């Protein structure tokens, strides 16, 4: 994948007042998700009530940016024509360290991608906006002494 993802003519998010904080943070390269002050659970995607206990006491919290790859697919035939120049590209289900799962764009790493891989937030300009993409944590890099 040698093309510049930022030049893709892809569909951006349909932002509402409720979800704006998420996308504002994303544009700054940060990942924030809601947390319920009543049941303590993390919530993704953003909602007006907690899907676990229906409390309205949801607050925005910074997420660690760590995740685990639950599944992935290399997309050869995209469902949206704007993605054709990038194909094949990889999307994956990222189980965030905080609990919820989000779908995201997975940047290539040096190793062959596997379910269970540890991932790290990698803000990436796609289609003219910075999105919270992820990339595999490189095992070698972690082992290196400081």
């Amino acid at each position, binding site marked *: 994948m040698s093309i510049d993802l930022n030049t893709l003519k892809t569909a951006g*998010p*349909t932002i509402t007042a409720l979800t704006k904080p998420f996308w504002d943070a994303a544009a700054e390269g940060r990942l924030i998700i809601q947390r319920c002050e009543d049941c303590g659970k993390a919530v993704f995607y953003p909602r007006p*009530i907690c899907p676990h*206990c229906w409390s309205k006491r949801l607050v925005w919290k910074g997420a660690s940016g760590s995740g685990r790859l639950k599944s992935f*697919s290399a997309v050869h*035939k995209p*469902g949206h024509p704007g993605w054709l120049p990038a194909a094949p590209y990889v*999307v994956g289900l990222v189980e965030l360290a905080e609990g919820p799962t989000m779908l995201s764009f997975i940047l290539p790493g040096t190793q062959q991608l*596997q379910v269970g891989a540890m991932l790290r937030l990698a803000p990436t300009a796609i289609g003219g906006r910075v999105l919270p993409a992820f990339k595999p944590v490189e095992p070698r890099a972690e082992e290196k002494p400081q």
Partner: protein
Amino acid sequence: MSRSRGSIVGIGELKPQRLTQDVTTLEMIAEVSRLAVLDAGLEPAAIDGLLVGPQVGETPQHVPATIAEYLGLSPTMANVVDLGGASGAGMVWRAAAAIEAGMCEAVLCVLANNREETAPRSPNRNPIREFDVPFGASGANISYALLMQAHMAEYGSTARDFAIIAAAARANAQLNPDAIFFGKPADVEAVLASPMIASPLHLLEIVMPVAGGEAVVVTSAERARSLRRPPVHLLGAGEKVTHRAVSQAPSLTSGPLKSAMARAFQRSGTQADEMDLLSLYDCYTIMVATTIEDAGLCAPGQFGAWLGDHDLSHQGDKPLNTHGGQLGFGQPDLAGGMTHVVEAVRQLRGEAGERQIGKAGLALVTGNGATMSEATALVLGAA
């Protein structure tokens, strides 16, 4: 006073606004649902039935699943009631009827609408559109590819295991002159050699969209006795809706059909291995694989070995989708799921011609919607 047919125990209402700004109908549904359930004094988890109105534009399809996921509900009965101004009243008796039929115990009936001065730039504003599409995930193929990859990773199932399902569907379609792939068999090698669409999903593991139509007429068992055709009886049913987006699925390797089928077996007093026909929803090969496992026909992860042990043709010990399934017959959009009902009726009437199965007493029919999200199971019995 005649006996109660059901009771309304909670109400919710939002204060009318001339115009809303930047609020989705989904958000408003959440607000008003919360009020009604609070008023009823029920825990949200007690809501096991969901009746909603159509949401033109914002969420054109899979409305109950979208709302259930948004609210964190997993109802065992879910429907859109599309009767215009009669939708609200129409929901109430349908809720009572569903409870009387044993499908659920507490039904949330909810209608809401936003009203914006200018229509939003993108009218489709459900969570998938906002949180999946921008990352390059549009359409069902990618979602089912993610389910398939997860199954392979968890259980070591192989591309060949899945291809067998597509090849068997094509083989059965050779006995159905109406099937779109009649005269066009495809063996396992052909399935594996077909183009990769979204790894690990090959083209021939995906249904072909076609035009078509299917219909059935249902009446009481009593009335059925006086009619001209041999009746096929509904012996038990189960339903379950757990999510809409694949990212929100409670499990990637088991679906809501598991509990829907368990309920259908329990209510019919039958077991999976007693079924003479398996008429299983097959939009993708992974759907059949998961259904075989969720039905309890084999242990989780063992569908590949199970396929190797059984003959899925009309002459086999486990006839599966004798009409060719949707993988062989074609998928006429929503009518595609009904092909599994119509074929089961044909078989149970003994009218399936050259593809008639031997003993035809019981059939399992499954339906599946969205991304292994919406599930209905039926056990049908011959007269």
